[in-house]
């Protein structure tokens, strides 16, 4: 994995390029650099790698994020899964409109080339200005002057893409790419669920993430159409074992025990699909479950503090598990209520089921009743959904005391293929080629 190699070389990379990560060039200054984008990505990634290892020292973490460094696009795995979680999200699910397999492949290639540029902080195509006055520019331009902002773009394929009679992929559908069951309490809106393709755009600057989805949608018109999309802010989990776990919209730290982006053994065990898992083309990939979880914010806010803490199984201030002093103290599950969220979600309660969470808070204004339309846009990556999300969600849907205050309103599952290796490779090559 590229990230790790760079992490190993962090000392020398950083030493050899003083100030680079701290003064990452803006998109505009990148114009005309052309082939320099890759080199820059590698240099900037030095900064990102520092962040990954920054468990004992907060300073490099801050400087990497503040520098808006670029995350390398190429690698054995797609960036945006184990990558240190960025602050902002724009997630889009697409319907494929074309019936032509070759056209779909062409689109994936076009998307890959655009993603290479954007994640390196460059505008797509010929850029946003300076072209023919009579024609619209290739890039819409709102990310000019902004830094790469650790933008990652991650693509996934939904079960419907493998349907019979569409692209001849029915034999390629992995068993692990299941049709998710309807869990008790689900109130799923088809207009916020499913999709043939998805793109997860994460960045530290929301404008950079939105810009990326906008360009891909534009490149895709006629071949794909956005089915639904979700903006997210305030990451609700962290893949860097730093001191603080971010809080969700209920004010709680949730997701303390997440897989670290540098824990290769855990990633291999729980996140990355292995060659032994069945579908060869998925080796190095992962399975993504996306759930839009609406929170009944107003009633939650009226719940007594004790009830809130009991529901989660943590205290609200420190985030420590029941009976413990510190957030990262090992929880004693039996001390919690049998319906406590942490207890039910814990691997020990689910035969070791472990997922990598990358969720974000969302607020889409208010609904027609004046209630905050807010909640958690839950994103979880795992090697096999049947051993990851499904058993955990079955357990939660049945017993979780939190269910009184939340409702799952959108749902989707995607097979996230392995990474794009180099400039000649493209998203989905292992599936289509």
């Amino acid at each position, binding site marked *: 994995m590229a990230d790790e190699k760079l992490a190993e070389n962090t000392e020398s990379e950083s030493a050899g390029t003083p100030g680079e990560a701290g003064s990452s060039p803006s998109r505009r200054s990148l114009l005309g650099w052309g082939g320099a984008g890759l080199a820059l990505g590698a240099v900037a990634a030095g900064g990102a790698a520092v962040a990954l290892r920054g468990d004992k020292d907060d300073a490099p973490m801050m400087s990497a994020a503040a520098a808006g460094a670029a995350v390398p696009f190429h690698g054995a795995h797609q960036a945006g899964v184990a990558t240190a979680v960025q602050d902002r999200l724009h997630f889009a699910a697409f*319907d494929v*409109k074309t019936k032509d397999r070759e056209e779909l492949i062409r689109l994936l290639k076009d998307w890959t080339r655009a993603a290479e540029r954007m994640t390196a902080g460059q505008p797509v195509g010929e850029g946003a200005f300076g*072209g*023919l006055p*009579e*024609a*619209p520019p290739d890039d819409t331009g709102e990310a000019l002057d902004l830094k790469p902002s650790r933008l990652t773009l991650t693509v996934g394929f939904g079960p419907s893409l493998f349907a019979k009679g569409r692209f001849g992929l029915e034999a390629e559908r992995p068993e692990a790419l299941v049709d998710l069951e309807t869990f008790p309490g689900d109130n799923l809106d088809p207009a916020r669920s499913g999709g043939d393709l998805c793109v997860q755009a994460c960045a530290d600057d929301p404008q950079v993430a939105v810009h990326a989805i906008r360009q891909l949608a*534009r490149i895709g*018109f*006629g*071949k794909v*159409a956005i089915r639904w999309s979700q903006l997210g802010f305030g990451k609700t989990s962290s893949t860097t074992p730093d001191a603080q776990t971010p809080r969700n919209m209920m004010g709680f730290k949730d997701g303390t025990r997440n897989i670290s982006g540098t824990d290769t053994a855990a990633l291999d065990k729980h996140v990355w699909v292995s060659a032994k898992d069945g579908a060869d083309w998925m080796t190095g990939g992962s399975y993504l479950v996306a759930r839009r979880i609406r929170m009944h914010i107003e009633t939650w806010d009226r719940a007594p503090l004790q009830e809130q803490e009991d529901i989660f199984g943590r205290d609200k201030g420190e985030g420590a598990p029941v009976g413990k002093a510190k957030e990262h103290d090992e929880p004693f599950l039996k001390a919690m209520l049998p319906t406590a969220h942490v207890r039910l979600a814990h691997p020990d309660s689910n035969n070791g089921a472990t997922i990598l969470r990358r969720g974000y808070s969302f607020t889409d204004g208010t609904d027609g009743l004046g209630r905050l339309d807010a909640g958690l846009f839950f994103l979880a990556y795992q090697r096999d959904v049947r051993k990851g999300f499904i058993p955990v969600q079955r357990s939660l849907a049945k017993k979780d005391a939190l269910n009184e205050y939340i409702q799952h309103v959108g749902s989707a599952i995607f097979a996230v293929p392995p990474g794009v290796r180099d400039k000649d490779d493209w998203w989905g090559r292992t599936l289509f080629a």
Partner: protein
Amino acid sequence: MRPARLSVVTAVATLAALTAVTGCAEKADSKDKANGGPIRVTAKDDACEVSTKEFKAGHVELAIENKGSKVTEVYLFFPDGRIVAERENIGPGLKQKLTAEVKPGEYEIACKPGMKGDGIRQKVTVTGDSKAVAKRSPELDAAVAAYRTYVQQQADETMPKATAFAAAVEKGDIEAAKKLYADSRLGWERTEPVAESFGDIDPKVDVREDGLEQGQKWTGWHRLEKALWQDKKIGAEEKALAEQLVTDLTDWQKRVGTAEITPTSMANGAKELLDEVATGKVTGEEEAYSHTDLIDFKGNVEGAQKAYELLKPVASKNDPALTKELDTQFAALNTLLDKYRKDKTSYEFTSYEKVGKDQRKELSDAVNALAEPLSKLAAAVAK
């Protein structure tokens, strides 16, 4: 319609109008003498004789004499069919003068005995410096000329339909007026970017209630649409508005041939037609009372397709992948639209209020699929 938006077409048309006015006013006789005096045009019932086929750029004067038996008119045309100058209503035996400011290039002088048809045409050449005139390919000139003919034809065909619609309103026949309403708009919708280029006509005939400026009187099609479908009554005011609509459209019909049209304005006009669909029709805002949005929708697509087909010979040489994509997407959108009408020749489309949310999304997707590549047509033509 979008009165606030000054399209490429509008801007250029305004400029052309200004040039024409000042050009006529300021030049002295000395320039005429450089050309050896006025160019004599002798109009007959079966001939249009011109004293010289070649003259110098600048201020020119045509001395016209009608020696025929019919009332005639004389035009000076650009090679793309645009009118440089015209003189109407020249009775038998009468003499008239026509002046114009012309740049070097190829032109045509036409006499129209009986003031009908294409007239009898003579090619003329204007010589001199041509630093201001960008050379265009004859293919593109032909495309512009054909599009100009189309635009005029649409205006001409609209008039009897609009007159019939107005007559029904004036008779107080609500049902008959409702039936004629959408069809009376079709020619306008097909050529909307050109129609809109006359900034003074568009706000009179096609403004929606939500587009009115403070103090602006609401006139035109949509005002009558509301009377017919919402208020369900026709009073003296509506009858007067119907008459006014015909007057305003007659103005459009007379002036539409003078619009400045270029290959890129045609291409971007086609894209603008799809923009009209994307912002107004697909949401159901355009025909809020009659719900005849799909007829306008079809008209916009037809107009865009006409402009595209005329530019295609050039565009397909410069960017074959683009024209292939456009062919596919025009076909896809037309196929989708066909699902909403009885047969492929009928303009009776499903009422838009009966088009569900999912179907609207499908239409919107198809519009985006076409409009995005269409936005690249101007570049393919300008290469």
